[in-house]
Each structure stands twice: as structure tokens, then as C-alpha cells.
């Protein structure tokens, strides 16, 4: 796996994690409060 591919997948996973945390907080705040 080339360095470009590693960087691409690392960015993909980091974006997923950041988006997941934000979405999770939004859903919780919308439903529980």
C-alpha cells in the first residue's frame, strides 16, 4: 500500500470518527433533552 493510499484511508477514518462523534452528540441531545 502506497503512502498516498495510507494517507487517504487515514483521512477517511478520521473524518468518519469526527462526523460520528458530532452526529452522536446531536442525536442524543435531540432525543434525550
Amino acid at each position, binding site marked *: 500500500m502506497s503512502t498516498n493510499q495510507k494517507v487517504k484511508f487515514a483521512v*477517511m477514518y478520521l473524518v468518519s470518527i469526527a*462526523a460520528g462523534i458530532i452526529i452522536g452528540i446531536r*442525536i442524543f441531545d435531540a432525543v434525550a433533552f
Partner: protein
Amino acid sequence: MSRGNRPSPISVTIWHIVLVVSFAGVIASMTILYRSMRSVLAIGGSCASGGPYQIAVPCPDGIGELLNGSIWVGVILLFLALFATGKTGAPNVVWLLWPGLFISLGYNFLDFGLHPPDGGGTQSGFISCGVIFMIMGGGPLLFTIPLMRQGRNGRRRGSEVAERALMASTRLRNAMTPPNVVVTAMPFGAEMPRGPVSERTPSVVADLERLAAMYRSGALTSAEFESAKQQLLTGAS
């Protein structure tokens, strides 16, 4: 068809999107689980809602639905993320979600065990749960990372050994074949070179040296040596 079974770029792009969305969904489910657990721990660690019984501690609004929903949706999206990982060839980091889940929930137990919301003493029940969760999450992390490093180094060593074995077998075959036939080590799947032998075997000098060595060692008579040399030069010219 020249492209064989290679997936189309559109298919690859779609699977990348599926991976990002499903992985984000798993993280969102874990976040909801984490916050739902904190809201339950904040009211003593247990609650109930619905049913015909008198409820001592009712659950906060929506917590029951959030807890159940986040677990089931998270598990389904986890399998989808695993499938998409295989389709895209992405590094499989999905196993890290196990330590992530247990360490984050273990932190919740330890936090509320050491700092109870009612301001009382430490809650040993929460602390012991927190320690167990930390071990369940951190144990695989501590054991798996060294194994992954060993596996990567092992694969690198394995490819070096395979390369050396290939070169050794090529040298052996060259030694056992007639001098004007040279076996060249080639990677699997490479196309065989075309054209006369002389154009693709620059090692005629090496063959002559090997022939001379056999003559010096007495393996060949003078006549055999001359004949073989002429044959080699004729075949190589």
C-alpha cells in the same frame, strides 16, 4: 474482456462512501451509548420505565430507546463497515472499536465511582466495573499491537527469504542446464522475453567462466571444453 473482474471506479467509490458512512454510524452509536450511560449513572446507575410496577427511579426521557437503538444500529453498521473494508482494501481498524467501546464505558464507571454525583464516598461497585471494563478494552489492545508488529516484520522477512530462495533455485538450475541455456529469475505473472537467446542472456561471459572452471577442475577434457566453448559461442552469436 480485458478488464476481467476488476470492480468499476464507480463501485469502488460507492464502497468508500459506504465505509465512511457506516464507520461514522458506529462511532455515533458508541457516542450515544457513552452519553446515555452517563445520564443513567448520574441518577444512581439504575432506572426503569414503563410496565405495571411502581418505579423507584424513572429513566430520563428517551434513554431506553437510545440505549437499545444505539446497540443494535451500531452492531449492524459494524458488520457493514467490516464488509466495506474488504471491498475497498482499507486497513482494518474496526477491531479497535472493541477497546474504544470498553475503555470509554470503563471511564464512565471509574469517573462516577470516584466522583459520585451525590457527593458521597467512592462507589466500589462502579470502580470494580470500571476496572473490569478497562481490562477488557486495554488487554486486547496491549496484546494485539505487538502481534501486529511481529506479523508485519514476519511478512517482510518472509518476502526476503522467498526472494533469496528464488535466486538460489535459479542459480542451481543454471548450473545444471547446458551452458547456452540460462534460466532467468522472473516474478510471477511476468511475460516471457521474446527474441534470440543472445539478446536476452548477457551472461555468456559467466557461462564461459563456468566452462573454464570445469575444464580446470578436470571435469572436461580439452576436446570437450573446446567443443562446448564453440557451441556456446555459436549459440550466443
